């Protein structure tokens, strides 16, 4: 229990200030630009396998995709953390039941653990797929 308290304490200390706010906003713009770039490529694409692979496996696209995947995970972590600290608290879980309310910190810790592990798994998978082509 004590380690969970420390974890929650340190994340609150780290996840504050305007930097987090700006990282989330500006990363969204970069992700949007990347998404639009891919869409514009696909609209004009020939549909052949070799064209697609030579596009996605070019050194520029490998670098951009790696950077964007890090931004996506950062953006997602900030958003998921915000949602978790908004809804998985003693007060809001208390709306559902007092028993849940008592376990709020453990629930929030588990939730954070799940999304951090998922995010790292996605990041690892993307980097592996991109750099192995």
């Amino acid at each position, binding site marked *: 229990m004590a380690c969970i308290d420390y974890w929650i304490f340190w994340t609150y200390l780290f996840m504050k200030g305007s930097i987090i706010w700006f990282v989330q906003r500006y990363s969204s713009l970069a992700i949007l630009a990347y*998404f639009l770039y891919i869409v514009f490529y696909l609209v004009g694409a020939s549909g052949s396998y070799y064209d697609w692979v030579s596009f996605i496996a070019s050194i520029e696209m490998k670098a951009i995709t790696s950077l964007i995947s890090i931004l996506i995970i950062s953006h997602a972590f900030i958003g*998921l953390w915000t949602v978790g600290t908004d809804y998985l608290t003693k007060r809001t879980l208390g709306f559902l039941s007092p028993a849940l309310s008592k376990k709020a910190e453990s629930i929030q810790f588990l939730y954070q653990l799940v999304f951090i592990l998922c995010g790292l798994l996605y990041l690892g998978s993307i980097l592996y797929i991109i750099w192995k082509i």
Partner: protein
Amino acid sequence: MNQRPVYIDLRKIKLPMSAFSSITHRLSGMYIFFISLPLFVYLLFISTLNKGSYELMYESLQSLTFFTVFVFFSFSVFWYHILTGVRHLFMDFFHLGESLKGSYYSSIFVLCLWLVSTIGFFGHIYL
């Protein structure tokens, strides 16, 4: 004090349009992280694995199946998150649409834009 009765029946809460837009932005974000994103990674993996797997994917995405609808839905949720996100960026960066009326109409606008573009794109591809 902890035993006070609390009335929070989520089905009976009527959200204003702007709150609906905000909460669905969060919900779509959750969906994207846990469902769309792994799906996109899977599609990236299949499409770059080899020529055969790419062509199988290319063929199977042309016809209307359960999997195709799932892929299309996941993309449309991502598109919805983008549109509502841009709406939030307009409020955050330019303070546009922060009034009660402005946020109401921008929510309606974004919802309509999403519905029309999604249905139009679906019809364009599959019908």
